[in-house]
C-alpha cells in the first residue's frame, strides 16, 4: 500500500476512533440514559420529529418542482428573475426567525412548525429543478421538437429524466436541512427531538442534551446516506454523473 493511501487510512481510522471515544465517554457519563429511562417520551419525540420533516418536505416537493418546471417554460421565463431572487432572499432570513414570525400568524403548535419548515425547504428543491432543466443542451430540445414530440412529451421523456439527478440532489439537501431545522420546532411548540436539546441547555443537563442531539444527528446522516443511494439507483445509467454535490 503506497504512502498516500496509508496516510488516508490513518486519518479515517483516527476519526472513527475519536467518534468511538466520544460515545464511550458519553455512555460512561450516562448521557444516553434518558433514552432508556424515558423511552416513551423519546419515541414520541422521534415520531414527531419525523412527521415534521416528512410532511413539510412532501409539501415542499409538491410545490417547488412544478413551480420550477413552470418557470422554465418559455412563456414564464421573464418571471424567473423575480421568483428566483425572492426565494433566494427568503433563505437569508434565519430559520429561527421564520419559525418565530409564524407564531403571530398561525399561533403555536405543530402546524406552525410544518409551515415554517415547508417555506424553508422550497429553495433547494426549486433551485435545483431550474438548474437541472436549464443544464439540458438546447440542441436536444430542438431535436425533440423537430421530431414531432409534443411539449408534454418533451417534458416527461427528455427534460425531467435528464434533470432528475439535480432535482433529487435538491430534495436530499432540503430534507437533511429540514431535519436540522425541525430541531428548532420546540420554539414554536411543535415538538420533536429539539425539545430535549433545549431542555438540556436550559437545565444544564447534558443527558437531555446528548439524548436529543445525537439521535437527530444520526437521523440526518442516515437519511442523507439513504437518499444518496436512492439517487444513484433511480437516475438512469445513461446520464453521466459529474462528481459529488
Amino acid at each position, binding site marked *: 500500500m503506497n504512502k*498516500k*493511501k496509508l*496516510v*488516508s*487510512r490513518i*486519518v*479515517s481510522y483516527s*476519526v472513527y476512533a475519536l467518534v468511538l471515544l*466520544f460515545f464511550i465517554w*458519553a455512555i460512561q*457519563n450516562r*448521557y444516553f440514559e434518558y433514552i432508556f429511562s424515558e423511552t416513551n417520551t423519546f419515541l414520541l419525540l422521534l415520531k414527531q420529529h419525523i412527521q415534521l420533516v416528512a410532511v413539510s418536505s412532501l409539501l415542499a416537493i409538491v410545490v417547488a418542482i412544478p413551480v420550477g418546471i413552470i418557470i422554465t417554460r418559455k412563456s414564464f421565463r421573464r418571471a424567473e428573475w423575480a421568483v428566483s431572487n425572492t426565494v433566494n*432572499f427568503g433563505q*437569508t*432570513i*434565519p*430559520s*429561527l*426567525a*421564520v419559525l*418565530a*414570525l409564524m*407564531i*403571530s400568524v398561525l399561533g403555536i403548535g405543530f402546524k406552525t412548525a410544518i409551515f415554517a419548515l415547508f417555506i424553508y425547504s422550497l429553495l433547494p428543491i426549486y433551485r435545483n429543478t431550474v438548474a437541472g432543466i436549464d443544464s439540458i443542451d438546447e440542441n436536444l430540445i430542438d431535436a425533440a421538437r423537430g421530431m414531432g414530440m409534443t411539449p408534454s412529451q418533451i417534458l416527461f421523456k427528455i427534460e425531467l429524466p435528464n434533470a432528475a439527478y439535480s432535482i433529487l440532489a435538491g430534495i436530499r439537501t432540503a430534507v*437533511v436541512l429540514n*431535519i*436540522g*431545522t425541525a*430541531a*428548532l420546532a420546540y*420554539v414554536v411548540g411543535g415538538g420533536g427531538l*429539539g425539545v430535549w*436539546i*433545549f431542555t*438540556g*441547555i436550559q437545565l444544564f443537563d*447534558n443527558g437531555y*442534551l*446528548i439524548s*436529543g*442531539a*445525537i439521535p*437527530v*444527528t444520526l437521523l*440526518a*446522516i442516515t437519511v*442523507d446516506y439513504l437518499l444518496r443511494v436512492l439517487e444513484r439507483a433511480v437516475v438512469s445509467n445513461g446520464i453521466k454523473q459529474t462528481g*459529488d454535490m
Partner: protein
Amino acid sequence: MDEWMKFLEVNFPRIIELTIEHATLVGLAIIVALLIGIPLGIYLTTNNYLAETVLQIASVMLTIPSIALFGVMIPIFSIINQGIGFVPAFVALVLYSQLPIIRNTYTAINNVNPEMRDAAKGLGMKTHQRLFRVEIPNAFPLIMAGIRTAVVLNIGIGVIAAYIGAGGLGVLITQGISRGDNYLIISGSVAVAILAMIADGILMWIQKRYTPKSITN
C-alpha cells in the same frame, strides 16, 4: 410606521452592539477556519485518497444539524469549564465552515487547467513556485466563492449561538420569541439578512479586485 421609529430609536444602539458581537464571532471563526482549511485544501491536492476521506468527513460535518452540534459542544467543553458561551459556538462554526473552504480550495486548484500546470512544470517551476505563482492565482475566484458560502452560512447559523449564551443577533430573536415581541424578531432577522448581504458584497468586491485581470469570468 411610527411604532417602528420609536422602537428603533430605543433599541438601535443595542442592535448595533449585537451586530458587532455577531460579526466578531463569525469573523473569528472564519479566520481560524481559513487558517486551517486553505492549507489543508492545498495539501490535499497532493494526495487524492486523503482528499476523498477528508472531504467526506467535512461533508458529514455539514449534515449535522446546527443545534445538535452546538448542543454536543456543550458537554465536551464543560470539561474545561467552557461549556457555555463563546467557545462551543466558536468551535462549531469553525467546523461548519470547513467543507466549503476545503472543498473549494481543493477543487479550484485541481481544476486549474492541467495544461497550465504542465507548462509550468515544463518551464522548470518547483512545486511551491507553481502553487503560488500559477495555481493559486488562478484558483482564487473559486476559493473566494467558498469563503463567501462559509461566511453566509455562518452568519445564519450564528443566530442559534444565542441559545447557548454566545450572544449575537440571535439574542434579539430569542428574546422576541419569549416576549412575544415581533419587532424584536423582525429587527433581528433583518439585521442578519443585511449583515449577510454586506459581508457577501464586501467579499465579492475583494474577489473582483484581486482576481488577476487575465482570468475571464
